[in-house]
């Protein structure tokens, strides 16, 4: 947003005494975990600052906390370290294409969702043999995803032989390269991530079929911090309403041609 200086500084907003919001506002500093290699959501490029939808959503929350944007410390949180980073207090919150699910709720809490993605499959442009997750049933096609991610676990349910068909890498970039070079036949993960790759290299890749899961993205916070979660939920609803949510999308992931649809309903569990 352009009006970022309005209403920032210590004590610029009033929060309940002892709450996380008050602490952060007093400190005028916040650490946010996001991805650095996720086009459209969190990508650190030549500018040295991460850019993307997750980043914009985080900035909206930070603004609501009364902290100026340049006081944010961005911390790289690849998929596998997200829970640990929250639990250990390495970051104050995580916005990193973070799918809400029950297993994760055992260790941390989610605000949101602020976006509903779905798992999809990316294949080489000239490949018509894969049309959906069931194409892996015959036991020949290899599919790649990232260690520790939900899509990896999901796709395991659709393949015949996990050991030979599922190829786990540590980043999606490697999966993409492997697909391009023919070492695997497909990459599966959330549609938005795949859209980012397709947008960058339309000559090589395409999507195979529709989303076959629902992946609601949430903001990860400490499990016991209900007040902070409520605050973020409020902030998100406000952003849905005032159009800043839509604006954030259009400036980032929206550029890849993905549709946004209606705002999701935040889940105040």
């Amino acid at each position: 947003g352009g009006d970022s200086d309005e209403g920032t500084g210590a004590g610029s907003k009033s929060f309940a005494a002892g709450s996380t919001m008050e602490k952060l506002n007093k400190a005028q500093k916040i650490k946010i975990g996001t991805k650095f290699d996720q086009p459209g959501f969190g990508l650190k490029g030549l500018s040295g600052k991460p850019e993307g939808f997750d980043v914009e959503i985080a900035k909206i929350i930070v603004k609501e906390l009364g902290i100026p944007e340049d006081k944010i410390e961005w911390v790289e949180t690849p998929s596998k370290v997200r829970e640990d980073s929250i639990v250990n207090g390495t970051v104050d919150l995580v916005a990193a294409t973070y799918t809400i699910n029950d297993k994760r709720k055992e260790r941390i809490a989610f605000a949101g969702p602020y976006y509903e993605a779905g798992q999809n499959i990316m294949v080489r442009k000239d490949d018509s043999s894969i049309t959906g997750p069931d194409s892996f049933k015959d036991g020949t096609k290899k599919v790649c995803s990232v260690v520790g991610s939900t899509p990896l676990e999901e796709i395991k349910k659709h393949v015949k032989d996990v050991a030979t068909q599922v190829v786990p890498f540590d980043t999606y970039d490697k999966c993409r390269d492997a697909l391009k070079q023919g070492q695997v036949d497909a990459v599966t993960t959330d549609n938005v991530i795949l859209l980012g790759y397709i947008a960058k290299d339309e000559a090589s890749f395409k999507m195979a079929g529709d989303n076959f899961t629902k992946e609601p993205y949430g903001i990860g916070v400490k499990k016991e911090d209900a007040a902070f979660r409520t605050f973020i939920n409020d902030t998100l609803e406000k952003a849905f309403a005032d159009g800043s949510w839509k604006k954030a999308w259009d400036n980032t992931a929206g550029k890849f041609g993905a549709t946004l649809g209606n705002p999701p309903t935040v889940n105040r569990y």
Partner: protein
Amino acid sequence: MNVLIDRFDVFAGGFWLTFQICLLAAIGALILGAVVAVLRISPVPPLRAVGTAYVTVFRNMPLTVVMFFAAFGLPALGSNADFLRIPLLDQVFSRLGADLPYFRFALIALVLYTAAFVCEALRSGVNAVPPGQAEAARSLGLTFGQNLRHVVLPQSWKASVVPLGSVIIAMIKNSALVGFFGVAGDLSQSADQLTSAEGYAFIPVAIGISIGYLIMTVPLGALLDRLEKRQAVAR
């Protein structure tokens, strides 16, 4: 601590894969290193220059960079390292569920990098033979080849064993990097898998993984210490 028992298969599998990678890489590195060492002590200056350049490049570059190079450079040159798909090896790979270019790339990087150190270990062995030995051989009238075969090499080999062993130990440790590099299922990647994805407590997993590496490195190190002490006494 239960994880050590419950998921023993993961630890054992990781150990086995790491062991196999190390074995393959060690064989490759020994062969390549010997070739480079021959280049480096050959009397032909351009060959010597090639050997020296090789060692300079690979000794001064982080293995990480070599690995990235192998992984991104080879494909860009249009190769998936298919030349490594030698029938027998290929079988081993696929049984590991690792019949993947990344496995081969990692192997290539490990071999290229380690070979530079193997070369230096072999060369240090040749240098360790006292000059008097070669001089005495020459003054008996032995030719260059005879000198090498009967006097220098048999002795340099002994002097090389310990440094070579250390290089291999270093290589075993370096192999831990492949797990962070896309080769799934080796020891170090198992650590990651168990703690991040499956949520096991960190400390027991760390202990288990450490034991896996120490089983390979510590006895080998102790053996080398013994060998070195024995050689020191014999001298």
